[in-house]
């Protein structure tokens, strides 16, 4: 019985053990790894992908997919940047625009994310086209929009307060990390403690039964994708603030990293299964991997190859755990 219980715990929290083992392994391999500074660095590096993957987790639990996050991030980044340039910069996008308070670009980034996501959701809910197609369309179009808006040029020289969002510290903790952890908490509450969260699991678990049980499937789908878009928008703001520029080519393939983080974290693509804790650890695993391999001096090409293997490996382990239960 006791062996049984241990087995159960290991399979339920398997991904957390993998994470701990990775951390131990890395700290043995590199003395720098386990310093507070480096660990903070890891979280800061994953904060952008991590934020996106929170929204992607909700989407995947509902049995959908979102391929547009990277492009939506770019649109949000360039628009926010264009509203957050220094007053005295000679190459301003809107030369007559006064220096705006930080809340303006921030709200713009969020609004753009929200709108793009809502369009995704509406397309999926109202026309019934697969999420893959709807968000693929958005991925291509939003990238085009970002290029169109900036004419293909970077939008740089952002205000101090703008940069603070990406580079500042509060009590020694990087601001992006604070934003990320806050969103982890918010999303966790949303998924576990609200009606919306229960509806997401229901839709992913059995969409027909959800409908019969009085779940408004269409409205919830729109909300799910809108929330995912919102997080992509926020990520765009943070990223542009960190690199002090908004570029139309930002965030390429971030959607895939976010999906990878979510998947490593145990969210099932067959719907109805997934946790925010998993998404968080999934993102950290990717971060530790990048960081550790960098510290060990592994080439970027090899890093790619290893990452791919880890993603597939994680899913294999996860599937086996589910298969065993049957």
């Amino acid at each position: 019985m006791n062996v049984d219980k241990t087995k159960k715990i290991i399979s339920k929290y398997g991904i957390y053990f993998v994470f701990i083992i990775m951390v131990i392994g890395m700290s043995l391999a590199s003395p720098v790894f386990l310093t507070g500074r480096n660990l903070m660095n890891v979280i800061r590096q994953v904060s952008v992908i991590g934020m996106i993957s929170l929204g992607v987790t909700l989407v995947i639990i509902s049995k959908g997919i979102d391929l547009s996050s990277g492009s939506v991030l770019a649109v949000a980044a360039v628009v926010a940047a264009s509203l957050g340039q220094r007053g005295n910069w000679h190459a301003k996008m809107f030369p007559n625009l006064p220096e705006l308070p930080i809340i303006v670009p921030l709200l713009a980034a969020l609004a753009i994310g929200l709108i793009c996501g809502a369009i995704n959701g509406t397309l999926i809910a109202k026309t019934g086209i697969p999420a893959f197609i709807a968000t693929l369309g958005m991925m291509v179009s939003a990238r085009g929009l970002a290029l169109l808006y900036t004419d293909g040029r970077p939008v740089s020289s952002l205000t101090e307060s703008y940069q603070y969002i990406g580079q500042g510290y509060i009590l020694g903790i990087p601001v992006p990390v604070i934003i990320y952890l806050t969103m982890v908490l918010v999303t966790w509450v949303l998924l576990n403690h609200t009606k919306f969260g229960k509806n997401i699991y229901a839709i992913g678990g059995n969409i027909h039964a959800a409908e019969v049980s009085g779940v408004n499937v269409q409205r919830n789908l729109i909300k799910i994708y809108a929330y995912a878009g919102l997080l992509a928008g926020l990520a765009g703001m943070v990223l542009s603030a960190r690199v002090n520029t908004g570029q139309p080519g930002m965030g390429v393939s971030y959607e895939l990293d976010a999906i990878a983080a979510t998947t490593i974290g145990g969210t099932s693509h067959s719907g109805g299964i997934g946790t925010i804790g998993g998404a968080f650890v999934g993102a950290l695993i990717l971060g530790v991997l990048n960081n550790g391999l960098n510290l060990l001096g592994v080439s970027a090409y090899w890093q790619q190859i290893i990452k791919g293997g880890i993603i597939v490996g994680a899913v294999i382990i996860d599937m086996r755990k589910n298969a065993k239960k049957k």
Partner: protein
Amino acid sequence: MTQQYLLEMRDITKVFPGVKALDNVEFKIKSGTVHSLMGENGAGKSTLMKILIGIHPPTNGKITYKNKEVVFENTNKALNMGISMIHQELSPVLHRTIMENIWLGREPVKGPLRLVDHKKMYNMTKELLKDLDLDIDPKEKMANLTVAKMQMIEIAKAVSYNSEVVIMDEPTSALTDREVEHLFRIIERLKNQGKAIIYISHKMDEIFRISDEITVLRDGQYIGTYLAQELDTNKLISLMVGRQLDEMFPKVECEIGDIRLEVKNLAVEGVFKDVSFILRKGEILGLAGLVGAGRTEVIETIFGMRNKTSGEVYIDGRKVKINSPEDAIKNKMALLTEDRRHTGIFPMLSVKDNTVIANINKYVKGNGLLDHKLIKGDCEKYKDAIRVKTPSIDQLIQNLSGGNQQKVLVARWLLTDPDILILDEPTRGIDVGAKAEIHSLISELAGQGKSIIMISSELPEVLGMSDRVMVMYDGRMTGIVDRKDASQEVIMKYATGSM
């Protein structure tokens, strides 16, 4: 009587995390006989059979087949050795054709490239279906079939393996009387060919009609194996239940009040037309008819799952617009659907989440968050009230036995405290004991002034429970019969359109 056993299962024990599903169970069957496996919901019948065909490994125990000890690691192995099973829960590939479903994984091939030989597959299917008197086109898509037809295809598939042991786990729960007769003819034939048939059902009359032997399980314990002629319904029930059973149809006469629901000239183009009836407070309206008569479609339309072409619905004298189940629930309606898998359970979610989903609004606190304590309390209460057998409310519903899943769905709708409760085959797959419990629950609800519409293909249930019975035939309402005038004969006449 000294005939050898074809198959013997001995000392079978199966432990799932938190549940001992089987405890030292024994089961033996001879060729050319029908052996029924009986027991309440969750007794372990399906589990025993899943062990036999290699879906679950037993925790302990031995299987001897044709005098050799065997271990089936997977279903394929069992199939190759001549053991096939019709599962309680169907899992057809909906978007493919009948023939592709039947030969899935063992398609006939031709040529050096081993391409699928569609022509041969078609002919083989045609022959198989003809042999079983099934008049269906092998190229028909699975999705276009009724649940009953799908079940018949599933039966055909099991027969097509030409197995020596055919396991049938509640094959008739989705069949109408006519198809049941058909199935029995098939069983008779298999028996004459010397096959062994293991039969699971909650319908007593079927059991006594076809069984040679009966093995009874209770709560995972082996109770005994009996010759069918040694037993009668009452004896069998007391073996299964281990206690005295309440009355089967505990209909309480209660005061019938004002009109609650009125449906006027409801129609859906091409499906049914001109359906009009009233339903009063405290009344149970039975809805009878053969499968395909349009009963389910009528109530799905009332519940907002289908768009009506014409007609009106009034609740408490007020005209209502119901375009979705959400609207229906807001108008205090509830619908227990007939297709548990498709529109009922969320397999990967817990019993708890499955129970509260339709009533989730009740648990939203002032701050927008859910009241988990209240959720837990309500779930525990209903779990005990209708005796759902599960180690905990956090168990995934897919790990419950079929009948217990059904009970959770009943709890889901009771929890919404509806004024109008629509039940589509509420006791499908539910054992005798639980059936009586659900019947008395329905009666009690009517006594509290709730209005109930109950569809059932079991005439005794309709007759036993209803104040009035509305009968449909071929998309039309053919009559509404009062309780005092209702009898099997009268209803069958309306249901076959001969009145």
